[in-house]
């Protein structure tokens, strides 16, 4: 990573940002789209298991699970992204990730439709999130990876799930 950063250090600020983003991503699908998570954020991938529902929580919080004696909350990323809810299939997985909260880094489970692969994305394949104009907030995206003719959205889970303002507002 350091070598890659150094190699692209002489580029534009955008290219520098992209170089910082190059690396391995765990890709997964949600609806029809593919998303990527930095692999270092990922603790493990598990099959969907029984989720204990917890009252008085936002809609996208499905509940908690018992992961080898440790209780972690589970977020439904579909609901978080405003997509219609979907019953669990035999491809549905929970990705356990580390998310930086206000106080400390915590483990969260994220329900996705299916997990695809661990993908190495070069800096040249990464674009910054474009400006959509207006007040569209795009900071939950690290960038867009162009791989094999498709575009994968690289997520900033700290922004999506972490202790930022928007998340707290929910």
């Amino acid at each position, binding site marked *: 990573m350091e070598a890659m950063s150094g190699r692209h250090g002489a580029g534009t600020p955008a290219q520098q940002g992209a170089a910082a983003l190059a690396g391995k991503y*765990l890709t997964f699908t949600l609806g029809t789209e593919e998303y990527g998570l930095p692999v270092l954020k990922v603790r*493990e991938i598990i099959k969907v298991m029984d989720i204990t529902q917890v009252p008085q929580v936002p809609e996208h919080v499905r509940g908690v699970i018992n992961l080898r004696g440790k209780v972690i909350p589970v977020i439904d990323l579909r609901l978080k992204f405003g997509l219609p809810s979907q019953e669990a299939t*035999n*491809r549905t997985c929970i990705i356990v990730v580390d998310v930086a909260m206000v106080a400390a880094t915590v483990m969260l489970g994220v329900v996705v439709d299916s997990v695809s692969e*661990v993908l190495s994305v070069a800096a040249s394949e990464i674009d910054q999130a474009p400006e959509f104009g207006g007040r569209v907030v795009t900071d939950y995206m690290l960038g867009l990876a162009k791989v094999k003719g498709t575009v994968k959205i690289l997520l900033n889970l700290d922004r999506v799930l972490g202790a930022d303002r928007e998340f707290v507002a929910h």
Partner: protein
Amino acid sequence: MFGTWTLGRKLYAVTAVFTVLLIASGALSLWTAGDLQARLIESGRRSRQILEANEKAAGVTVGAQQKVFDEEMASAEASFALTWWTIVAGIALSLGTGGVVAFMVRGISGTLQASVHELRSGAEQVVSASGQMSATAQSLSQGSTEQAASLEETSASMEEMSSMTRKNAENAQQAAVLVTDVARQMTESNAALTEMVLSMAAMKDSNSKVAKIIQTIDEIAFQTNILALNAAVEAARAGEAGMGFAVVADEVRNLAQRSAQAAKDTAGLIEESIARSQEGADRVEQVAAAISTIAGSVEQVNGIVQEVREASQQQTQGIDQVTQAIAQMERVTQTTAATAEESAAASEELNAQAETAAAIVDQLEALVGVADMAAAPPAQANDRGRVLAMQHKPSAKPVSLPRSAEEEIPLGDTGTYGKF
């Protein structure tokens, strides 16, 4: 001329002749007696004249002689009167005898006439009846012949019908055999289909099991994939140290994905196979149902064909009986025809005999003279009888020769005619 005279007329004639002869002889006697008397009186007168002349001449007394002479003359006159009366009485007697004879002849003739009249009417009736009988017998004979012909035709038709019915029965028999064969084959097909249905069900079951296995394989592949991903994540976290491990994890993941793809393809194939076998099972069940229906229909057809066969057999028996009855009827009809022929011949003979009898009656009539003799002379009466007989005679056969009834008619068979 006298041959045609009736018996009464002849008797009358004879009586009249005798009476006339008697009267004539009486009259001749009367005339002769009268003449004799006249001559005697004349002779007496002349004798008296001679006597008186003598008396005058002789002058002799002749008074005594004249007295004797007068007495003799008176005696002769008395004798003549007696003779005359006797003759008159004879004439009267002969007239009376003739009247008595005529009366008697008239009585006998009346009786005879009545009898002959009755005989005649009887003979005419017999002629008429025998003519009718002959006509009836001939009609019967003709009818019997026609009936025999009709019966012959009917018999031929019945034989044809019999052969048709027999053929029908044979065909029904064949049809029954075929239908039975079909029914057996249908049953076999049904059994085979049932087995096939069972096989299809077993196949479906096997497919389901294979599908479950495939599902398990898919599950394993999925888990392997997750494991490989976890390994890749761990390798990534391990940095440079995990590079080799990452390669292994990637290979494992590739294998898992291929396994999953293969399982998916196989599952697709298996599902297709299940669907196909389900379709096949449905089709087979439809076919089985159709075959069951057909088998039922075949059973019904079999029953119907059996009924047709039995009916045909019964029909054959019935036709045989009818044929026998017709044969019997034919025999009876032929006998009837023969009898009718004989009867017709006998009737004709009877007619001829009646003719003969009528002729005899004619002769008798001619002999005794019938009451209506004046209106119809005997010869004409005879002709009329012939004409009557000819009218009642259906055949053109001329009046047969007079023969005795015993020669021609078998009186033993037709005893009624024997009295005639």
